């Protein structure tokens, strides 16, 4: 019988919590180094133009200006994905969006740097602009980039699993719907910031508020054409990431180059307006979905099309495109599936990954579509999902391996707690309940650049005071990765989290962790930490066994002791145990690594989607809508999240609540939109996000499915619970008012327009009426995995 855990599962404070509550945590902009210069980037005022001339002579003469860079100083391109190396630190010949960096200045203070930017004269030759998906596909003669899968098409994907027409032929009922999901920014409270210091020994150090120090390290070496071995990247505590700090950025590279040129430290902190233009946020996506059902509500086939407005650069866009089509199969059994997706370039700030990366948009479409189908078939919205629910330990039609799955339990929790079945469709006009479910990754199965090496590694070292130092490149962005490392190592070694010291996110001092994205850190760094700690425990038990005369397999490490399981009074204190261990083995240092299993299916394009496990969520939202003002107020949210195991339930709740909050912003108010290439609201005042006053009553439920491969059975908590909230609110609005807003965000204007349409005898729907008529390339036809041969499974 296994002992109960001493740390795992307990609602402990975060290990870095007090540092953040006292002002001691040092964020990137808090660095003030001796002789430090302040840098600023000059950004394009034109959405699409050739650079005819840049004259920096006026700025160079301004007293206090130490260096000025333009595109020719950093000509090597970069980009987060090896297939999309399309960014320049400073535009060389052409700018592609308002905000594209064109020059960089380092000066004695920020004001001088700012004045220097005003003195730089850039002559642009305007080019025709592309501002929408439709324009991108229509204006084939205008090209933002000269690469991709077609004119202004960055990526086109077409995959078919089995014959989708065969599935539709077996359907008793087929429905098509169209949806649009507007883009949104992450709005991290901390603006991006980087400090670089080049010293005369040839070593360059960059401190940056980044979620991915390893990728920044690689980009710096590539663009600076400088050996990676002489570059050190330290990720500072990230003041909010949500995916917005996962790309390498121009301000990081420019700060490094400016430091190398001047021989002095250089800091570049972006303004809030720049953060809106740097972006990499949620892609606007236009979607079309067609699904066939038997009369009993079983899915026979699904065909999904997505059109992503990518903005001016590639960023993670190839992955984003796949993500809009890949996870539909992880919640429902879909026997035949076809996905066609494309991402276009437009003259707007580049889109990238935001919490849920590419999957909230299709999840919104799918869950609203299912509600409409349920209504048509006279089924309860919960029942239609239950009839199609994916099963644990199964393989989806697109070859995703499902291990643990607590989705059914998630549904039970929220449906029961909200009284959904008794109340849905029965509340007074203006009030409504909506339901939706979702799934998310626990880390992308493949790294961003192809390699066979581990995705996460952890080293442990024990000092003679009994302290345990954990070295990991994982970076805490508020999600609690520092705490997870401390809890897992402490649990295995039987010490307190306060005995654990952390050295993290430093490319010189810590072994690899690819970064805080795709909900991968708990799963991957957690497993690596457990492996390193188990090796350490084996060394200690080996030595303690000799000392105590007790076989190692009877020893237990717990409560800062190492003792005989059968005679607990026979044992050593922790410090005694590590002393005998060090005497026997020398330096007490161990390492652990985590490499995800190879999970890709037998087809090209199968690299995006596989994950060592999937988390599951279900949500019910209750809304109160004002039919005069069109305002939608979310009053209550019930949400259940299958996290495998809650390593710390307090932190899991925090992630769930934060996900609900962020989803409510997206579904009701947030919009990253543009007028003539200029952001409509590049300020926190005008770009609306929910405040304390818009916070609904939240009821969260943690479901534990104990994943066989997760650290102590854990999966993920940071992103999954955002997904079902958006469609749950949209479905609740439909329940409340009988109108369908098939376009996110659900603003009062759209609600009023839908109500007016309904009064005039229309369908009471606001949303896209059509999708672009474009012929996708022939799909890659993928043979069905075993067990999927029959369309209708009994």
């Amino acid at each position, binding site marked *: 019988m296994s002992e109960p855990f001493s740390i795992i599962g*307990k*609602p*402990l*404070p*975060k*290990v870095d*919590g*007090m*540092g*953040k*509550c*006292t*002002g*001691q945590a*040092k*964020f990137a*902009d*808090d660095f*003030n180094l001796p002789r430090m210069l302040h840098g600023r980037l000059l950004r394009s005022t034109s959405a699409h133009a050739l650079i005819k001339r840049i004259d920096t002579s006026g700025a160079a003469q301004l007293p206090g200006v130490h260096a000025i860079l333009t595109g020719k100083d950093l000509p090597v391109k970069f980009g987060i994905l090896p297939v999309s190396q399309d960014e320049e630190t400073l535009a060389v010949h052409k700018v592609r969006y308002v905000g594209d960096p064109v020059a960089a200045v380092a000066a004695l203070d920020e004001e001088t740097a700012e004045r220097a930017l005003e003195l730089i004269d850039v002559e642009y030759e305007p080019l025709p602009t592309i501002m929408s998906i439709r324009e991108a596909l229509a204006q084939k003669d205008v090209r933002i980039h000269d690469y991709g899968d077609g004119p202004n098409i960055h990526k086109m994907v077409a995959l078919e699993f089995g014959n989708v027409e065969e599935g539709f032929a077996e359907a008793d009922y087929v429905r098509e719907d169209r949806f649009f999901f507007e883009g949104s920014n*992450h*709005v*991290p*409270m*901390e*603006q991006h910031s980087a400090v670089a210091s080049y010293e005369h020994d040839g070593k360059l150090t960059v401190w940056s508020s980044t979620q991915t120090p390893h990728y920044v390290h690689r980009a710096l070496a590539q663009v600076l054409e400088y050996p990676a071995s002489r570059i050190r990247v330290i990720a500072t*505590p990230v*003041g*909010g990431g*949500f995916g917005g700090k996962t790309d390498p950025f121009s301000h990081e590279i420019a700060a490094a180059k400016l430091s190398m040129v001047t021989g002095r430290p250089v800091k570049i902190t972006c303004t*809030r307006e720049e953060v809106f233009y740097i972006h990499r946020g949620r892609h606007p996506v236009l979607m079309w979905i067609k699904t066939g059902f038997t009369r009993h509500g079983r899915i026979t086939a699904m065909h999904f099309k997505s059109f992503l407005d990518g903005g001016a650069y590639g960023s993670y866009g190839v992955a984003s495109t796949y993500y809009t089509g890949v996870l539909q199969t992880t919640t429902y059994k879909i026997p035949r599936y076809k996905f066609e997706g494309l991402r276009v370039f437009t003259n707007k700030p580049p889109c990238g990954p935001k919490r849920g990366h590419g999957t909230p948009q299709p999840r919104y479409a799918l869950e609203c579509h299912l509600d409409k189908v349920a209504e048509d078939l006279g089924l309860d919205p919960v029942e239609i999902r239950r009839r199609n629910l994916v099963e644990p330990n199964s393989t989806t039609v697109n070859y995703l391996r499902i291990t643990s799955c607590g989705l059914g339990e998630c549904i039970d929790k929220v449906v029961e707690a909200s009284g959904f079945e008794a109340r849905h469709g029965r509340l007074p006009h203006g009030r409504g309940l909506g339901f939706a479910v979702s799934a998310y990754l626990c880390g992308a199965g493949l790294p961003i650049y192809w390699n066979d090496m581990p995705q996460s590694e952890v080293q442990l070292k024990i000092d003679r005071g009994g302290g345990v130092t954990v070295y990991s490149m994982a970076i805490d*962005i*508020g*999600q*609690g990765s520092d*705490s997870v490392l*401390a809890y897992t190592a*402490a649990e295995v070694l039987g010490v*307190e*989290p*306060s005995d*654990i010291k952390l050295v993290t996110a430093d490319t010189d001092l810590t072994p690899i962790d690819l970064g805080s994205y795709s909900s991968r850190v708990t799963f991957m760094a957690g497993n690596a930490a457990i492996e390193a700690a188990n090796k350490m425990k084996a060394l200690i038990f080996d030595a303690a066994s000799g000392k105590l005369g007790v076989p190692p397999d009877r020893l237990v490490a717990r409560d800062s002791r190492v003792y005989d399981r059968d005679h607990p009074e026979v044992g050593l204190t922790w410090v005694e145990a590590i002393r005998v261990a060090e005497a026997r083995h020398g330096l007490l240092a161990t390492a652990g690594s985590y490499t995800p299993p190879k999970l890709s299916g037998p087809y090209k394009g199968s690299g995006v989607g596989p994950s060592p496990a999937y988390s599951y969520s279900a949500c019910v939202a209750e809304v109160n809508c004002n039919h005069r003002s069109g305002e939608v107020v979310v009053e209550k949210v019930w949400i259940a999240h299958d996290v495998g195991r809650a390593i710390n339930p*307090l*932190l899991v*709740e*925090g992630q769930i*609540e*934060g*996900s*609900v*909050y*962020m989803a409510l912003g997206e579904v009701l108010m947030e919009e990253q939109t543009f007028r003539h290439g200029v952001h409509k609201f590049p*300020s*926190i*005042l005008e770009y609306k*996000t929910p*405040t*304390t*006053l818009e*916070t609904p009553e*939240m009821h969260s439920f943690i479901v534990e499915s104990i994943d066989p491969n997760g650290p102590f059975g854990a999966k993920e908590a940071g992103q999954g619970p955002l997904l079902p909230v958006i469609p749950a609110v949209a479905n609740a609005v439909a329940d409340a008012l009988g109108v369908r807003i098939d376009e996110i965000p659900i603003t009062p204007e759209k609600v009023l327009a839908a109500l007016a349409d309904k009064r005039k005898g229309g369908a009471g729907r606001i949303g896209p009426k059509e999708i672009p008529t474009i012929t996708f390339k022939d799909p890659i036809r993928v043979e069905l995995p075993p067990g999927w041969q029959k369309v209708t499974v009994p």
Partner: protein
Amino acid sequence: MPKTLVTLHVNGERHEVAVPVHKTLLEVLREELNLTGTKHGCELGECGTCTILVDGEPWLACLTLPVEVQGREITTVEGMAEGGVPHPLQVTFTELGAAQCGYCTPGILLAAQALLSETPAPTRDEIKLALSGNLCRCTGYVKIFEAVELAARRMSSREPAAVAAGNGEGA
């Protein structure tokens, strides 16, 4: 650039700084006094991140000029702990996970401290209103409300502190 000598009382200490008059209090606190616990999210008075206390009232440091607050008592997050003992709000925010990334936390702590000094037992709605000018993108605010409520109970001695929240111990 012409500079003016300004006397500031910050966290019980008197500082004389020579700064251009247009420098904001936020800049002076962070850059001249090295009190980097006060953060910034917009520098336009929109996000509440740089909230500090002036004579116990929440002010936005990014919209304040140092000359306005000469001779008045300024409190930053660094001044919340007394004699090395964290303020009850700092303890409950740590215990309940009300700080995730922690960037908005100093401003919220000070806004909450101002609330509790006026209203020792605030209702949930009073807390929401008092913190409505402080944006947080991580927590969804729920844990923040709970931490303020727990601190209020402890400060009025209706509930003793369970632990001195430290490095992962207790609770």
